[in-house]
């Protein structure tokens, strides 16, 4: 009997507490693009360890910042936010620092960032010839820092990048890039046969990393190559 009473009491308490906590869920979201101020193209990103968007909800003190991730193609979308005013600032990006801004997020709010990427990879070409996959490209840098390294990355997933690759060919530059120079990198398929299986398609992507604090790589779009 006692157990039943305790059980009922516990149930009541549970139900009551459920009702008490039953606030509306997050019904708003923030979505947008990172656009190259000069070329108008999307600024490509890493899906993991990539650029993040720091958002700080107003009205709480102290408040823990939330971080939104950005997709490989340079777009982002988060639909689980509470309607409120937020201070929004992209951080640890692959573009020249942009100012924080206050944004009223209600419903599906769109916010594009017009940015100047640290590096533009131009004239990018990825081709397979025989046993090699070869990338050629030029580097245009928008800050005076050194370019740390350039790389060609391969993965069977289209979201390939420096942190998400099965095979990589990298070159340390540690110098200011010469905009007139055609850089080239190649991956030898047979010597990576344990990873790059013939008869399958892989994605190859060119990246370059600027020597700036927590900067992330800049990329050209990934290219699908049948091996």
């Amino acid at each position, binding site marked *: 009997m006692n157990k039943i009473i305790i059980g009922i009491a516990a149930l009541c308490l549970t139900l009551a507490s459920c009702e008490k906590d039953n606030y509306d869920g997050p019904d708003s979201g923030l979505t947008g693009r990172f656009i190259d101020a000069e070329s108008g193209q999307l600024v490509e990103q890493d899906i993991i360890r990539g650029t993040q968007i720091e958002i700080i909800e107003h009205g709480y003190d102290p408040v823990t910042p939330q971080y939104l991730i950005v997709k490989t193609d340079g777009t982002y979308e988060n639909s689980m936010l509470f309607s409120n005013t937020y201070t929004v600032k992209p951080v640890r990006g692959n573009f020249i620092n942009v100012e924080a801004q206050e944004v009223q997020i209600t419903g599906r709010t769109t916010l594009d960032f017009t940015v*100047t990427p640290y590096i533009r990879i131009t004239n990018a070409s990825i081709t397979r010839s025989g046993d090699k996959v070869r990338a050629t490209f030029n580097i245009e840098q928008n800050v*005076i820092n050194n370019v740390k390294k350039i790389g060609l990355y391969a993965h069977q997933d289209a979201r390939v990048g420096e942190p998400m690759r099965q095979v990589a060919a990298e070159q340390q530059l540690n110098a200011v890039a010469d905009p007139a120079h055609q850089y080239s990198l190649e991956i030898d398929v047979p010597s990576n046969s344990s990873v790059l299986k013939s008869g399958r398609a892989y994605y190859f992507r060119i990246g370059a990393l600027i020597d700036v604090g927590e900067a992330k790589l800049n990329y050209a779009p990934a290219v699908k190559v049948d091996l």
Partner: protein
Amino acid sequence: MKIFRIAALALAAYLVLACSKKKGDDPTTPLPPEVEEVVYDESGCLYTSYNNLVMAGYQGWFAAEGDASQRGWYHYRNGNCGGFMPGCSAVDFWPDMQEYTQTYKSPFRFADGSDAMLYSPYDASSVDLHFKWMKDYGIDGVFMQRFVVEIKSSNPSGKRHFNQVLQNALAAARKYDRAISIMYDLSGCTPEDVAYVEQDWNELVSSFDLFNNKTHPTYVRHNKKPLVAIWGVGFNDNRKYSIANAAALIDKMKGPSKKVSVLLGVPYYWRSLGNDTEKSPALHDLVKKTDIVMPWAVGRYNNNNYANIAGAELAGDIAWCRNNNIGYVPLVFPGFSWGNLRNDPSLYNSIPRLKGEFLWKQVAGAKMSGAGSLYVAMFDEIDEGTAIYKCAREGELPLHGDMKFVGIEADLPSDHYLWLTGQAANWFHGQQGYSVQQPVR
């Protein structure tokens, strides 16, 4: 009970009325009169914008024993070790004295026993020579440093000194068509000292007739107003004055009719409020009220880590200023040395000049990042060894007891840094043919 309700209603009605009154809807309240922005006659003015200019800071704080200032070896001497004598000085570099006409015998001698001479900027002829050099080498001009603690009313000899140097400089600037402006340095100020700047500025404007385009055609204008610089706002090094004190000063100096344009000297990491910057967004509010921002870069990097440190800062600063419609002037400096000032031989050449490589790297970095003008620290700063003017070379320096003087590299001419700054000015004026490589003479 009903009485309570009526009382509550009455109270509510009163509150609503009281609140709405506060919003200023009352038609009997007169609006403040519209103040028209002052318009200056800029005809004949040679420098109507800081854009594309390369200007240096001019300390002019030295005095020589025997000059008319009667301040002894002011700023050559080092009070921490007993004055100005072999083994004790404030200065690391020694001016190249060959072209000065008024010179003073210093307590120092060369190895051959001959006297080492020095100049005093209290003498018009010495300041005249400096401005002649600016013209000869193509440097646009200088900001006359005005240390508020040196010119406040409790320091009449300091004020007399800096006013005399300014008078010399205004005459020379006109004679050689060199740009000139005034930079107040707030270091060491109390809040009262900061407020005093307005009074000093008004005195200068009236006593020198500073805004007269005929008398001072080379006084720098910017955004259609005479330009004045306020240096030292937003540093977190326990200054006695606040950003709010500086903001109040600038409000007053501009006034409702926007009498002047203001260049604000801020810490290097002003935008991110990092490192030695006060973590206060009020700094950004103040920057937005000014016309140009100039971050202090001396000692923030050296030749090896310059690009890594300055690259992202320059690019971020320039983008921020463009978005906020503020002018931006990066600072460059040839090197740094203050072994004598700090009485520590390990601090000689603490940021090496590398024969101009370091200075040129910054010039190219600023230019290639998109900066439109430069501030060079400094024209005549030999205490901290950032001077670009002619200094004696290694091997041609006076003896200094168990200390030493630092010279221009022996295989360079003594005017190398003047020449190199002139080359920077050419580049910023749009002349072609310059790159990251230091130009060859």
